[in-house]
């Protein structure tokens, strides 16, 4: 394809003048284009986007927590407890009873996502304010000492996915720490 044709030594014919053959100056650029596009493709495919992804988290002011304490009804609360061994448990209501085991799997019937969605339905159906409006579900997330960060993010992500508006991360009190030990033993033994 290249347009340059070398004058293959087309030398001296007889005694005539030395003639230089006219060379075309056109260069075929096709291979060069190929190369350029190859490089572009390579760079595009090997680059990773730098901007990190993030989820947003709002924490309350420390000294204001007590002032802001809202009255929450027994029927609208759900506690989620994360423990050290990647396990997750929950109980409904304000009283420390009826602990159930759960899982992080979204498909699992007793998984945390289905549980939250069911609870949401139950709250909006059966937990009404004095004016008769349904209340919001309140999820309290308790992180036991030594739980890992991945699980916390997973649970916060579930809050986002299930569209739970009211949730809080709390330090478990000593009763809960104790209860968690006892319940976890009995729940996970079966």
């Amino acid at each position, binding site marked *: *394809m290249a*347009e340059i044709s070398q004058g293959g030594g087309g030398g001296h014919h007889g005694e005539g003048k030395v003639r230089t053959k006219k060379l075309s100056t056109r260069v*075929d*650029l*096709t291979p*060069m*284009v190929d190369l*350029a*596009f190859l*490089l*572009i493709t390579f*760079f*595009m495919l090997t*680059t*990773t986007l*730098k*901007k*990190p*992804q*993030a*989820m*947003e*988290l*709002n*924490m*309350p*002011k*420390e000294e204001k927590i007590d002032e802001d304490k809202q009255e929450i009804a027994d029927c609208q609360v759900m506690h989620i407890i*994360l423990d050290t061994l990647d396990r997750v448990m929950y109980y409904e209501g304000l009283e420390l009873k009826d602990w159930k085991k759960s899982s992080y799997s*979204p498909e699992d019937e007793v998984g945390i996502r289905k549980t939250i969605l069911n609870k949401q339905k139950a709250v909006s159906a059966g937990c009404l304010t004095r004016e008769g409006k349904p209340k919001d579900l309140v999820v309290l997330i308790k*992180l036991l*000492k*030594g*739980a*890992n*960060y*991945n*699980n*916390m*993010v*997973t649970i*916060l*992500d579930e809050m*986002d*996915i299930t569209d739970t508006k009211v949730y809080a991360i709390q330090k478990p009190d000593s009763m809960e720490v104790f209860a968690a030990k006892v319940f976890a033993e009995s729940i996970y033994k079966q």
Partner: protein
Amino acid sequence: MPAIKIPRKSTIIDMTAMCDVSFLLLTFFILTAKFNDEQSVIIDVPAARSEIKIDEPLLLSVDKEGKVYFTAPKGAMRTKTLDKLIERYGEKYPQLKELNDVQKAKFLDIEMVGFPIENLPEVLNFTKEQMTSFKKSMPGIPMDTIQNQLGAWLMAGRYADPEQRIAIKGDKISNIDAVQDVIKTLTRNDVHRFNLITTLEGANR
């Protein structure tokens, strides 16, 4: 009747224009690309659905062992952070006041601060080789109750640019207690809104 003559046309297309365009694109992509700095501390972030993108925040990283690191955005912001740190905490850490301009300029290359403020002059005197080996074994920023140096860095960053977003980058398996200490430091310093760095990869949706 003469047959209709179809004029013979050359099939060669002039590629010059296309070549120009493709190289222009290539140059553009190469010049606009920003290179990632080599990461001295590897942090495997957890996955989540959220898709908020943030550009160069004040980064507080927590690694597997619970060590805490501070990263200020590159360039002018980093210099300013150090200046503010000297300005506000110079009394508390007299070592800061002894820093000379060469050392300050060298601070620009420190991607992650993971050592006590007291060691700053020493670290800034390191040669390149010393720095590389040091980066792999940084002790983390001390965060005890007597002197919370992470808070100092954080405030320096905040004074340098109050608009700057703040993000926590924690490793999947890092202990929650370390992360909660960082969060506590944030709320103590009146930062109530911040981000957690996550990845979309393998997120369950």
